[in-house]
């Protein structure tokens, strides 16, 4: 088929990482390169030891070949994450984090942990944050109905994680509360899935 079964219900984390890698990051290059036109824009010139702003995928690529150092974003620091973690555990709401923070943090920590100050502390903070937020998003399931559920400050990777269960739950509510025509439609949809 045109689209493999696992891709029909959701987006895979790797696809999310591909999208997040389009965002720009500062690097200190170790090679020179003239300003070059790429499809997503023109980047460069790379002139060590000056900083330059390039897409994350390019930075990761160069870093793997040891041709640059990645300057981690301001939010990927122990102080910032520590702040957010204490906010997360004391407040009922989700704290504000960049929408794609999980993907970006992962990409940077995977290849450039030597460019991040105190990388192991950053990792464990990210992990704590993730667990604190996960338990909050599970609580959100109790508020689900058939019309709308607002999830302020929920990040993309977290949305992707709760998607299958939440979507299914809301569809069941719609089915239970819907009009007779709607029920027919849902039944048709079920049949499709079975086929």
């Amino acid at each position, binding site marked *: 088929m*045109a689209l493999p079964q696992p891709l029909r219900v959701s987006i895979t984390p790797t696809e999310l990482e591909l999208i997040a890698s389009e965002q720009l990051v500062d690097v200190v290059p170790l090679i020179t390169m003239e300003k070059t036109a790429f499809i997503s824009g023109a980047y460069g010139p790379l002139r060590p*030891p000056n900083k330059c702003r390039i897409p994350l995928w390019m930075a990761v690529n160069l870093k793997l070949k040891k041709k640059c150092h990645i300057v981690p974003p301001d939010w990927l620091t122990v102080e910032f994450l520590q702040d957010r973690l204490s906010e997360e555990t004391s407040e009922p709401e989700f704290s504000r984090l960049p929408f794609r923070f999980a993907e970006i943090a992962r990409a940077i920590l995977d290849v450039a942990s030597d460019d991040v100050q105190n990388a192991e502390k950053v990792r464990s903070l990210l992990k704590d944050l993730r667990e604190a937020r996960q338990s909050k998003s599970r609580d959100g399931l109790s508020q689900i109905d058939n019309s709308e559920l607002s999830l302020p400050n929920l990040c993309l990777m977290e949305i992707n994680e709760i998607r299958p269960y939440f979507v299914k739950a809301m*569809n069941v509510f719609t089915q239970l509360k819907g009009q007779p025509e709607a029920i027919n439609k849902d039944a048709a949809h079920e049949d499709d899935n079975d086929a």
Partner: protein
Amino acid sequence: MDDDDDFFTNLDSGNDHFQNRLRNAPHDDDDVPMPAALPLFEEGEGETPLQQLIRHWMNERHAPDVLPFAEDVLSGLLDHIRRQSETVQLLRSDPSSSEEEHFRTMLAQTEVERVKFVVRSYLRTRLFKIEKFARYIMTNPEVQQRLSENEVDHARRFAKLTDQHFYVSVLQGLPDNQQTLDDKTPFLPPMIAEPDKSHAVFVHARQRCPPVRLLDGSTLTMQKGHVSLTPYSVVEQLVMRGEVELV
């Protein structure tokens, strides 16, 4: 998500002095103004064609219905891919290229492959829906408006092919009144598969949106950056106008 557990645990400690120097390195003098690097919160500047295509791709992946074909964006990008590949080929065939040139071509090539991946996935997602709803599309001219010519053509042939197959394999042996493929028996699902617009989707507001009416009768006004789970029918118009994206 199964490798998430070792996501943050792979220990490694760095040299703090060196990292401070990294952070404080000067920006290149003739740096043109650029969007902020990994900003804390994304700004709503103009999207590049690639970002537009990625948005259309994600919408298409999440929406239960077939969305309008992003023809202009796609043809522009395909053109760009072709030009970029030609340049890469040209540089590669040049034996006197320096190491610097080598890196540029390698990066350009990598980007071409990334964009191609998005284009393919976008088209395949549409193809999947078109085949699934082929008969519905052929009975509904309004939906055909959203497809490209090639896609309508494919839907027509696919619907014809399956109809013929059903007829030859089973239907011709049945009594005349049971040979149709579009029965609408009360209290039974219709035979033509239709997109389920009550399917729940996650939306992310790209700007402040006009109020929408929810199924329970109340209204919702989404501010920029708002994230919400709601049935697709509620936000369908906002998606078509590009005011929200599906995530």
